[in-house]
């Protein structure tokens, strides 16, 4: 687990990032005559916005490492943002984070203690959160504005160059990398993802580890929600929906095994950057939504064909 060892998926991911930049630049040079993709301001803007996906994917990775999945991310993100904006002030901020904490606990309890498959339990929780928000907002877009903290982490930049969202992403990343590689909690996570029964019989308190991972995931979704609302200056309906599938894709493209037990955090970062760049290049090329979806799907399949292949089941 040495930090500087380059993994195959990460290497391929980096190659693809450059490939996308190259293709996009060639396109813009021939069609517009400029190369915005190579301009730092443009790239920084992409990172500014991509940080929200980055934080969401970071949380999702924790849960996937365990062999689980969290489908409640969309409405955890949205509910945190909506409630925080509605209540306002520091209380609002704390409420938003509290939502993440609460949802993570509920998910963890359902999966770790009730042993309901995570896919279905988190799906149910997502629907409940959706229902709660519909009830509270009356079905309309909420009118309240983002709090100061949300603006600070989502929209603001220092010296107009360093987006706070990116700093936040880096902080979250550092914390998670530390946890994964240096703490026993992180080691237990990999162990559970590999073989929960053996980890349990080795005297590890596996339910707590599972609850912990789900709490981290939901908190990340909350933080991303607060930041995203800050970026848009308000919370809005279904703001979390575009973050579910891309966060899962980013984690898997980064080399984390979907069944758990294997994966390095650097891969998730590479996966996020890849997806963000891909989406931005496609919109620069003024592709219809139709072509964007087609290419998005095709790129994922191609990349996985190159390195994501499982083993043929022999015995």
């Amino acid at each position: 687990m040495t930090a500087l060892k380059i993994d195959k998926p990460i290497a391929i991911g980096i190659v693809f990032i450059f490939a996308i930049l190259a293709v996009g630049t060639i396109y813009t040079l021939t069609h517009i005559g400029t190369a915005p993709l190579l301009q730092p301001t443009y790239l920084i803007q992409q990172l500014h916005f991509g940080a929200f996906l980055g934080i969401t994917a970071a949380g999702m990775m924790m849960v996937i490492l365990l062999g689980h999945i969290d489908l409640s991310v969309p409405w955890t993100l949205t509910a945190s943002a909506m409630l925080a904006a509605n209540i306002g002030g520091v209380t609002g901020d704390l409420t938003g984070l509290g939502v993440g904490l609460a949802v993570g606990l509920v998910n963890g309890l359902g999966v770790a203690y009730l042993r309901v498959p995570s896919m279905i339990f988190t799906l149910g929780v997502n629907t409940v959160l959706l229902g709660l928000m519909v009830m509270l907002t009356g079905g309309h877009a909420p009118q309240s504005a983002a709090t100061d903290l949300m603006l600070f982490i989502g929209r603001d930049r220092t010296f107009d160059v360093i987006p706070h969202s990116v700093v936040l992403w880096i902080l979250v990343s550092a914390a998670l990398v530390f946890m994964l590689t240096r703490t026993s909690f992180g080691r237990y996570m990999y162990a559970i993802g590999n073989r929960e029964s053996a980890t349990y019989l080795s005297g590890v308190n596996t339910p707590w580890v599972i609850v912990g991972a789900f709490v981290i995931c939901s908190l990340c979704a909350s933080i991303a929600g607060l930041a995203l609302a800050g970026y848009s200056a308000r919370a809005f309906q279904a703001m979390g929906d575009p973050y579910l599938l891309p966060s899962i894709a980013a984690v898997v493209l980064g080399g984390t095994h979907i069944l758990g037990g294997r994966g390095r955090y650097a891969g998730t970062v590479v996966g996020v950057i890849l997806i963000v760049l891909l989406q931005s290049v496609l919109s620069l090329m003024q592709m219809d939504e139709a072509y964007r979806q087609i290419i998005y799907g095709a790129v994922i399949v191609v990349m996985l064909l190159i390195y994501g292949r499982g083993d043929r089941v022999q015995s």
Partner: protein
Amino acid sequence: MHENAEPASDAGTADDFLVMRGISKSYGGVHALSDVDFSCRLGSIHAVLGENGAGKSTLIKIISGVVQPDRGEMTLGGLTVAHTSPLQAQAQGVVCVFQELSLMPDLSVADNICITDPPRTRFGLIDNRAARRRTEELLARVGCEDIHPMERVSNLPLSRRQMVEIAKALGRNPKLLILDEATSALTASDVEKVYAILHQLRDDGLALLYISHRMHEIEALADTSSVFRNGRHIETFRKGTRTDDEIVQLMIGRDLETVYPPKPKRDVRPDPGLEVKHLTWDPALKDISLTVGRGEIVGIGGLDGQGQRELLLALFGVLRGVQGETFIDGKREKIRSPAQAKADPINMALIPEDRKTEGLMLPMGIDENLSIAALPQLTRGPMIDTAAESERIEEMIRRVNIKIGNRHDPVATLSGGNQQKVVIGKWLMTGARIVLLNDPTRGIDVGTKQELYRLFRELADGGASILFYTTDYDELIGSCDRVFILYDGEIVRELTGDDITETNIVSSSLNLPTGNDAEAHA
């Protein structure tokens, strides 16, 4: 050399059914088989012996089509064959009954037995009724008419599932039947049935290949035996032409001193390390009371399924609703989880039944597997002290003598015996003072077994209390200071010292009164 032994490089005689010449197979840098010549004939039971890592499993996998050799050729009945899948091998009449069961748990017995080539109706659809009839015939053939064809396999106990596995193999009309540790999960009565079936099949003209670590099975069954060691075919000899010691020597290739380390003589009863009173768990455990002193190895014996496994799980905190009292070093403790059992002040360890699913995280490194249980002791605050961890891991690898390439390699690359050593090493790292052993030497080669016996005695001498469940009477006699026999969830006999004999163990297991106990049971 005995006149009845055949040289190992025999290229095969005329009435050999299976002939293998110059077979080699490597996995990475490990030579699983090196230039092996091997043959077996119809109408005989041919045993294959060897330690783990000797190449038996690889040999079987090549014959049954699961893997392909790197070099060499194979003929069946005179025709050269190169199986690329188990299905192809089966078409040639080669059928394997595996140790790792090949049954689908959610399907019915009939579906499992008829899965590859089910009887069909006119339209090509599966004929369920005919499948059920075929299943009933095969089940009757293995003496298991009590199994309902539509029963889901997961509802059957392990030994019944193994019998279904054997029935399934017979249903393929094998010419060459291979059994790889096929009786290890069976009850004693089922084992007898299987012996009878195998003898019948041999008389019917089948060729049978039989792999087992149990000497008495080999003696009961095999007409011919072949010994493998380190990927090479060492020797093939006929029944009765070699003594057990000679066979073991062939397998290990070095001189044996004693099989078991000596037991200490004790005048005074040692302090109790682990004591249980009236331990009950409906329906498997009834009012069990026993003591294991510090420095003692106490054995648990008896027929399969009398509650031994449940006893160990109950002690370790895995079972819910356990009644009774447990005392550690004289102090009462209520153990509710393995995490609690592992920690101070209890310091208990459990070597589980199935190392692959309960003892190890196979894709993870040897080092990570070794340290997983002891991590709480290797942390400074939330962080792992990697230097200390590394040191302790190296130490443990040396102490338990685990043969590895690189300690970061996945533990899945190790042989069975070495894997078990990792499991034991994992628990030694926690400094456990009470060690529960759940059949720890099952499926392990002789050489490793001896190392483990030494290790257990060392641990005991260091003050640990060891509770040793094993299905092998030899081990009870050789390793244990005292033995408790369980029958139907109760302790029916305690044997100490010279009373620990095969006769006493067997008769107590069957709950028969023995000698001076006759009045007690009357």
